């Protein structure tokens, strides 16, 4: 039915401006949300007056499940939180478990975890930037970025047998040691990534459309970033230089040279730039880690009663068999202290922490996750205010909200 514009009431006819606001439902199914999240928008024309996020569409009780699965089983759930960079979720989970059990990893294991962690950081930042480019109309950059992620999946496949959710870390070690084929595939990533990065950079950071859509959009100041608990590349794009890898080192990070990139603008463009520079720094870390990769065992010795013995040890030695039995039988398993701990690592998206409470058994009493996506999405209504409807896509892309981690 055609709308008769003459019948529309006039703005100054004694009514307040609020009556002319209209409500728009964005999501839960929308191409720019990539998964499921819903925002109810109050609009004045195309200007956003108020944005109210409604989340929980993907809530799967991951924290409740943590109270019923043991420390090694839960790694499969940790994987599925931020499924763009699963290895870092595994590292965060087992970092907390190993801290509460007081396990000191072997040097080789620390290096291996750093390597897979940084690979996953690269893959996360590539997807975030690529998908944002896709939403803003730059399909080519998206394909270039995804091409490289494929090579990183090849590394996961070779090291663990799984492409998407490797489930690679274990209490006190990792599933399998690195072999030559894994190192070959990592070398392949290292070789093909720098030229691809240059390509994507040229496609985006000197592209007028991309610049216009992201510069000065969704600005978050330094004080707001700290106040809103924002961490990671988002905070660093606003001038917060805190990086847990540098400031509270864990694993083998103190042994590598790398810089913490940051910007002061705090807009979407700065966030993508910081992410891109972080990819370069991750490449530096991986290159050093591969060069200095120490030999020796990858798991802590089975006499410490934590790691599962490998097949050869379990079948061919008495100690291995006993240890396997002790860990696998449901009425036995590892012992934990009756205590609690907060342990955080610098995941690709920001601070990923676990508040872990144990009751003496090998099943946690409470596995509270500090999910960066959840905390970053809480900022969204604040930074999108007074922007245009089309800016939602740019801001959502720069926040890198992963709904599985958001809703858990």
């Amino acid at each position, binding site marked *: 039915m055609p709308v008769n514009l003459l019948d529309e009431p006039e703005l100054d006819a004694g009514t307040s401006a609020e009556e002319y606001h209209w409500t728009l439902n964005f999501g839960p199914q929308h191409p720019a949300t990539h998964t499921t999240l819903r925002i109810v928008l109050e609009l004045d024309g195309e200007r956003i007056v108020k944005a109210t996020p409604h989340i929980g569409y993907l*809530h799967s009780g991951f924290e409740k499940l943590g109270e019923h699965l043991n420390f090694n089983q839960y790694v499969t759930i940790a994987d599925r939180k931020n499924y763009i960079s699963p290895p870092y979720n595994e590292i965060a989970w087992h970092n907390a478990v190993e801290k509460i059990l007081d396990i000191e990893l072997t040097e080789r294991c620390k290096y291996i975890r750093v390597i897979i962690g940084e690979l996953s950081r690269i893959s996360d930042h590539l997807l975030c930037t690529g998908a944002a480019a896709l939403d803003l109309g730059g399909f080519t950059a998206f394909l270039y970025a995804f091409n490289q992620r494929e090579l990183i999946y090849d590394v996961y496949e070779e090291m663990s047998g799984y492409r998407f959710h490797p489930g690679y870390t274990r209490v006190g070690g990792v599933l399998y040691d690195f072999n030559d084929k894994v190192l070959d595939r990592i070398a392949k990533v290292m070789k093909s990534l720098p030229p691809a990065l240059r390509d994507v950079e040229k496609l985006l950071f000197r592209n007028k459309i991309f610049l216009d859509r992201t510069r000065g959009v969704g600005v978050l100041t330094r004080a707001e970033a700290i106040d809103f608990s924002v961490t990671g590349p988002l905070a660093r794009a606003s001038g917060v230089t805190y990086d847990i890898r540098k400031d509270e080192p864990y694993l083998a990070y103190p042994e590598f040279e790398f810089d913490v990139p940051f910007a002061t603008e705090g807009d979407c463009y700065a966030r993508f730039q910081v992410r891109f520079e972080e990819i370069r720094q991750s490449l530096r870390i991986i290159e050093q880690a591969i060069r200095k990769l120490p030999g020796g065992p990858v798991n802590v010795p089975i006499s410490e009663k934590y790691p599962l013995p490998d097949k050869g040890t379990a079948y061919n030695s008495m100690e291995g068999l006993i240890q396997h039995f002790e860990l696998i039988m449901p009425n036995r398993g590892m012992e934990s202290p009756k205590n609690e701990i907060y342990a955080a690592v610098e995941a690709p998206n920001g601070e990923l922490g676990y508040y872990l409470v144990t009751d003496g058994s090998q099943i946690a009493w409470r596995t509270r996750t500090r999910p960066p996506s959840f905390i970053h999405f809480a900022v969204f209504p604040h930074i999108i205010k007074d922007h245009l409807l089309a800016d939602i896509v740019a801001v959502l892309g720069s926040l890198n909200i992963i709904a599985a981690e958001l809703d858990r």
Partner: protein
Amino acid sequence: MSTAAETDHHSETLKALTSALGDTGYETVRFRDNFRIYVSSDKVFEALQVLKSICGFSQLSELGATDYLKYPGRTGPRFEVHYCLLNMNRRERVVVKTGVDDPEPTLPSAVQLWRGADWMEREVFDMYGIRFQGHPDLRRILMPDEFAAYPLRKDYPLRGRGERHNFPRLTRGES
């Protein structure tokens, strides 16, 4: 692992807390590299305020709760809420813990101090039913609004109480 250097690390924080709450106003526990401060629920807001404004804990990095129902050897209140605070200049972290008990567990809201507490407090309310007084918008966040139970409580079963099968279902004709 409490070495002399680590003791010094928290000494200024302890001094400020003692002058604000008194010697008996709080208890501390050190475990691995964590430093926990236990305060009672009526003093928690005061303690957080001191930690933010005097000790420089500018960021609330995490807020969550735990249900200790039937926790082995437990005598204290049923729930505990933790606030993990970060001082970026001194690279110091502390965990403030406070207990609340059934029925109607209530705590003062920390949103006035850190705006980041907003959604995290809503999640604690959603999962445990702990109310935060002074919170600007205390609604359920992950579970649907009509959900009646608090799913992360220990007396709530893993597989639920059949809520999922009783969700109202709209047909195409009704919509």
